[in-house]
């Protein structure tokens, strides 16, 4: 503690080296920044006098007015989306006009290097991917993760189901952990936002797991709440070498999101109106029966309450070959979105604002499912004189998700479970006296269309993400600046989930769920996470180098309170749990606090060719065994732009970065709990199943990343190649114990894991003429994981149903995400033929994660017409297709159209073969957009003279999937997000494709 404080003080002292900023004579220089090859002004361009801290920002018309020291100087003009340019300004010049070329390869983007510092991407020592607002919103996105699919090398972004509302896993550079957090830290305008996923209580009727809610509730991770339309840029720091400054939350990478801000000048109003629809992407081919075959089938296999075909068909007429999937999932509802934003500021730039509001509705592929969102954002900036500025960002939003029933169940309630056991000659849509009939083939008698109409699954989230930041420019001279900022941020939301299954359904009346018909489950989850950051940044500009020193501290706190109430046995129409015959309550709580210091030094020298960075973060957390002990996370990096270049090469940069980051210990892992067991009104206790570790400390991941960035052919080509190696030590493991000890797991810090990977980004502008431009971005990434040491015997982990289907095992020498399967067994008998023993063969069949993935993004612009596409290709990865198991073994002889293949598969399974572990390779056309800019004159005619632009777009999302996978979708996950074990396909919500028509108007 003392040493860290001393370090902090030293950093402050270093930062305020006095007297370097002696006063100089200055003059005013004005200028105008325009787009190269035209007259269009570039508002917001940053103008800086090279070698000094002096500069300013161009206004709404591209004009600037800055102070320049006496004598000849150079000005650097930068703007996101344009290539930076350095222009001379003579000793007697008082005005400069500059034109900037569009930076289609994003070479000049500023990227984050620390809590309060950025550097031009041209100098960056890490492969930080930046995705800007245009790339994010090329097609209407349900959430920001889907907006990143196929665009970030090293990111595996996978949808858990086709249900509306999200539920997507983003994993950067493989799996660093078995039991810890596995997702990146999301930071929005300096606020660390929560990305937890909570069940909605579906388990209360599905019976898939224990308790009222379970991980099989088809959860949505709450980053889905963020509004993609408000985002200016997303920077993806992929590993510890870039994210070490985030301490024990940086090991899995950091996704830094910056929302749009105001701009000085005339207000700009953007309005987007979208209409669209959705359609199921894929259904399974079901078995059809002729009437004669159906008669034979029913006679041989009469369902409950029927003797044979005669009485069966009298009650349930032969319906031909009815595909219940289309009956349920054939909805093409109207989706719409209205988004408006207003951006502006006072002419002097002292006050700027960005405000936006949106209303969105995504229709589901059933008539009752869907996703609604309303959001309001206000971002304000106020300058108080030359030294103080205030920023306040606030977003309030509400989402309503209705996802219906999908995933694993044990109550014959999931529609696909019911369909798997119902021959296609039964018609779910038939009504008698206006009432759906009971499906005699389902043990629950459930009619899936009745359930879909009356079972309610709304999940409302009310969320506030806000931050306030005060900046103080303590020193601002020609050669040095010292700035302090204090930022307080809060992310608070209430997740209110309801499951209501009325008592009159066949399902409830059957007693399958409970002998008390009618179920209601109320989930109420309150999450508050807050952080307070104090940052100081000192910049010293001398002729041989520019030194940027930053330092600060940070406090985080996160509270989660998750309460579920359940009632069974309801009066019709009553959802009040207090009136239920049988009630139950579950609650989970946790509270985490952490505190950290950091200091960072960056030196840019050798004519801005060489960038050296060193930093350290020291952090303590309440989840550690010793809550007062600080753990340190250093990083260092170097990048160098070569002065000698191969032919046709504009720029070649070599980079090497090293960093250590932690992974916070999961809450409560240091404790050995007692498990409450209630009997006869007496609260009993026994030891919990897990032995905690009171000395637990964070996992430590060390990363070395190296590579090069090259630009060639006059900015027409960019190549980024990165190789990295990560080593995680002191893994936080819930190692398997022999259950005969009375405990099943113990928490340990032990073992090491390695991830090695390659990332390539190739950006090309193959054609660039005055009327036609073709821009192509290709990404490639591969990651190999290996558990290199394990101090305990191999143990099973992750979610799954059994090793016969395929499950996951932590084992030295194998990938942490390996899939293992029992593949047959041998029985031995003695001389008398008596059974002696049985041995199983365990097969290491492959890995859940892909061998590699590629993204192909292409934009073709012909005049005002633009065609954009994004193809996402993933090769390899195993998925456990339990949906096939349902259909193979239901309906005597299988309910698949290809009964022979299904029977063969089923028999192979019974013989012990691993037939349900399938390759999950796929290619998806994620995005396709055709956009036409109608132009200013047309906009004037249509919308009045204040209109500046009008654009029309037709777009689609997930339009085509190419795969040999035999299930609905190789991306699905029954257990939602998980580092290990997410590839279990159990009767999922089928995937869908979306179509949108958009009008974008600017005033």
């Amino acid at each position, binding site marked *: 503690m003392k040493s860290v404080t001393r370090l902090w003080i030293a950093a402050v002292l270093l930062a305020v080296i006095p007297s370097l900023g002696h006063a100089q004579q200055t003059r005013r220089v004005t200028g105008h920044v325009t787009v190269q090859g035209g007259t269009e002004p570039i508002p917001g361009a940053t103008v800086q006098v090279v070698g000094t801290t002096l500069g300013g920002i161009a206004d709404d018309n591209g004009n600037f007015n800055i102070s320049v020291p006496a004598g000849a100087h150079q000005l650097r003009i930068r703007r996101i989306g344009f290539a930076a340019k350095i222009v001379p300004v003579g000793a007697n010049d008082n005005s400069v006009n500059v034109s900037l070329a569009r930076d289609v390869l994003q070479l000049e983007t500023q990227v984050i290097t620390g809590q309060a510092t950025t550097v031009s991407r041209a100098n960056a020592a890490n492969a930080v991917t930046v995705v800007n607002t245009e790339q994010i919103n090329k097609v209407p996105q349900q959430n920001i993760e889907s907006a990143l699919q196929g665009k970030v090398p090293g990111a595996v972004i996978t949808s858990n189901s086709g249900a509306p509302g999200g539920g997507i896993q983003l994993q950067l550079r493989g799996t660093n952990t078995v039991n810890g957090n596995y997702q990146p830290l999301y930071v929005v305008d300096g606020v660390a936002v929560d990305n937890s996923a909570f069940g909605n209580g579906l388990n209360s009727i599905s019976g898939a797991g224990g308790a009222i809610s379970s991980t099989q509730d088809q959860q949505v991770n709450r980053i889905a709440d963020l509004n993609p339309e408000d985002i200016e840029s997303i920077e993806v720091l992929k590993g510890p070498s870039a994210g070490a400054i985030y301490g024990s939350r940086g090991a899995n990478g950091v996704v830094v999101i910056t929302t749009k801000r105001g701009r000085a000048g005339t207000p700009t109003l953007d309005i987007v109106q979208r209409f669209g629809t959705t359609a199921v992407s894929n259904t399974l081919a079901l078995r059809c029966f002729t009437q004669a075959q159906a008669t034979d089938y029913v006679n041989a296999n009469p369902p409950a309450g029927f003797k044979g075909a005669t009485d069966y068909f009298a009650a349930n007429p032969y319906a031909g070959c009815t595909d219940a999937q289309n009956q349920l999932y054939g909805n093409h509802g109207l989706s719409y979105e209205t988004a408006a934003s207003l951006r502006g500021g006072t002419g002097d730039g002292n006050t700027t604002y960005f405000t936006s509001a949106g209303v969105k509705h995504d229709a589901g592929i059933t008539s009752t499912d869907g996703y609604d969102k309303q959001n309001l954002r206000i971002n304000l900036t106020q300058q108080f004189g030359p030294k103080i500025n205030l920023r306040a960002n606030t977003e309030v939003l509400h989402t309503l998700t209705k996802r219906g029933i999908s995933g694993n169940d044990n109550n014959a309630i999931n529609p696909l479970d019911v369909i798997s*056991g119902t021959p296609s000659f039964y018609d779910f849509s038939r009504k008698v006296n206006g009432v759906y009939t009971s499906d005699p083939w389902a043990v629950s008698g459930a009619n899936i269309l009745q359930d879909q109409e009356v079972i309610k699954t709304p999940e409302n989230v009310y969320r506030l993400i806000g931050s306030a930041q005060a900046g103080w420019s303590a020193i601002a001279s020609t050669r040095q600046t010292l700035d302090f900022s204090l930022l307080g941020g809060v992310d608070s939301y209430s997740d209110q989930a309801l499951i209501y299954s009325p008592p009159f359904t066949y399902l409830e009346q059957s007693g399958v769920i409970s002998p008390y018909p009618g179920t209601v489950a109320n989930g109420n989850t309150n999450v508050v996470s807050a952080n307070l950051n*104090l940052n100081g940044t000192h910049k010293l500009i001398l002729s041989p180098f520019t030194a940027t020193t930053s330092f600060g501290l940070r*406090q985080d706190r996160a509270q989660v309170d998750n309460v579920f109430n359940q009632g069974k046995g309801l009066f019709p129409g009553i959802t009040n749990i207090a009136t239920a015959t049988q009630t139950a309550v579950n609650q989970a*709580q946790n509270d985490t606090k952490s505190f950290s210091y950091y200091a960072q030094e960056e030196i840019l020298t050798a004519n801005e060719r060489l960038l050296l960075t060193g930093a350290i973060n020291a952090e303590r957390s309440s989840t550690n065994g010793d809550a007062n002990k600080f753990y340190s996370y250093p990083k260092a990096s170097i990048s160098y732009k070569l002065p000698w270049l191969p032919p046709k090469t504009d720029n070649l940069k070599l980079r090497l970065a090293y960093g250590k980051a932690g992974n916070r210990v999961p809450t409560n892992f240091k*404790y050995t709990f007692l498990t409450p067991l209630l009997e*006869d009104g007496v609260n009993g206790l026994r030891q919990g199943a897990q032995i905690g570790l009171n000395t637990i400390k964070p996992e430590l991941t060390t990363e070395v990343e190296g590579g090069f960035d090259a630009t060639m052919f006059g900015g027409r080509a960019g190549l980024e190649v990165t190789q990295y190696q990560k080593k995680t030590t002191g893994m936080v493991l819930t190692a398997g114990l022999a259950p005969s000890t009375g405990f099943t797991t113990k928490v340990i810090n032990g073992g090491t894991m390695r991830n090695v990977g390659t990332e390539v980004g190739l950006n090309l502008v193959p054609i660039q003429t005055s009327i036609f431009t073709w821009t192509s971005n290709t990404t490639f990434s591969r990651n190999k994981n290996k558990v290199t040491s394990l101090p305990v015997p191999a143990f099973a982990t992750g979610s799954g149903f059994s090793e016969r289907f395929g499950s996951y095992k932590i084992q030295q020498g194998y990938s942490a995400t390996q899939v293992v399967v029992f593949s047959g067994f041998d029985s031995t008998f003695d001389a008398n033929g008596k059974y002696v023993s049985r041995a199983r063969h365990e097969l290491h069949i492959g890995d859940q994660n892909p061998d590699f993935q590629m993204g192909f993004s292409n934009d073709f612009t012909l005049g005002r017409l633009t065609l954009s596409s994004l193809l996402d290709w993933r090769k390899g990865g195993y998925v456990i297709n339990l949906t096939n198991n349902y259909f193979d073994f239901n309906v005597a002889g299988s309910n698949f159209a290809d009964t022979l293949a299904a029977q063969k598969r089923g028999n192979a399974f019974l013989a012990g073969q691993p037939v349900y572990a399938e390759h999950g390779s796929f290619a998806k056309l994620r995005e396709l957009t055709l956009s036409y800019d109608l132009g200013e004159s047309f906009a004037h005619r249509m919308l009045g003279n204040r209109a500046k632009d009008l654009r029309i777009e037709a777009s689609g999302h997930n339009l085509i999937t190419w795969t040999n996978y035999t299930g609905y979708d190789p991306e699905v996950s029954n257990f939602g997000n998980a580092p290990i074990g997410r590839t279990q396909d159990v009767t999922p919500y089928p995937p869908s494709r979306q179509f949108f028509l958009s009008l974008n108007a600017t005033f």
Partner: protein
Amino acid sequence: MKKYIAAALTSTLVLAGACQDNPAAPSRDNVVAGSQQTLQSLATGIIAQDRANYGGNYFLWGGIMARDAIVPTANESRFVTEFYVTPPDPSDFIGGSQWTGYYQLLRASQLLLKDKAFTSLSAADQGAARGFIRTLDALSYIRLIDYRDQNGVVIQGPDATVQDPIRTKASVLAYTSALLDSGLVDLKAGSSTLPFTLPSGYSLHGDYSQTANLILLNRGLKGRVEVMRALDPVAPNAASAAAALTALNIALAGAPSPMTEAYLNTGPWYQYNPSSPESAANPQQGSSSLVTDNFVNSFMPGDIRAANVIPASAPTVAGFTASHRLKLTDPNNAALQSSPIPIVRNAELILLRAQAEIATGDLAGATNDINAVHTVEGGLPAYSTFTTASAAINALLYELRYTFTYFGPQHIVALREYNMFNLAYVTQAGMPNKGAADPLVSSLPITRNETNARNGNITPVP
């Protein structure tokens, strides 16, 4: 300059608050040690774990193994396939079951006996409590062996950090027998009542908070163990049949003549309370929990237990289905959710004594005991004295089948003991028959997690 440093240091002090947290659930540290409440909580934890272990399909698997019960569930084919088609998977909810919970109970027992709440009791109260705990421990070992049979089980040692070896069935039964004897000594030396309250099921059919009755339970279980030892096909213990008779005669000393249903039901029972906040329901109900057609068709004419069978339906799974269920499994009957289930009742002890009598050649005694169940629970005319052991065994198996299906594995355990897997109702046409060499799945494998933790070495040692 100073003001910058001061501001920074002030901020540091303000922000650098303590980083302690509050655990979200009870731990050993925040439960007050040594209090009466602690003793009651720890005792209830053990008792509730025992009930949970029973509900974890102890009552069911044996019935499926013996082809009496069948659970053809559309969304979970393994209820059928893992017993009728393939061996149970040691990694799933069948092959991996009936293991962990017992060892949690055994560890909880050890922790209770070390806890200050226990050691601060009087010697007499300690005796009563220890005798009860050891008797429950023995019940756990019996149930472990019921399902693992010759695969063996672990005798849990005092140190949770030590991985004790898997022991042979014979060793475990010998240990369990001694454990019960030790418990008997404690009970005899103990107070007349337990120093903590038992659930109401323990006083439903006899007051088992009284040590006098716990002694009867202890001896009943001793009889169970000794019968298993006597009839162990691999390592039969010659002295055990007589030892079983001795123990069971003590347990059944109060048997009336003529036999009554009340006496047959005497014993500790599990009580269920499905209402809030306990939410513990009788586990026997299940939408697909049926009985096999052969079970239904094999009732002796006039057996009043046949009235407990009602029509039901189920899908065909892997070629198997059924058309009837026992009333007690009816999921639509809400009242059944609070229906108690016997832990051990005298009917079982009487049939165990019959087994001991058959083993010692006392066919008259065996006939008398079998008739006690046959006439009262089956409502059937009494058998004449059996003239052969096989006749007595067949009659015994019939009673086990129709008395204990959906209550436990007593039937499959006896089939195993008498090596009678090839009985007609097991191998009949239409029923699964994996071949004469391996006709039935009659035991569960050592679980995957236990196997993994031992690097695959699960061969039992004596």
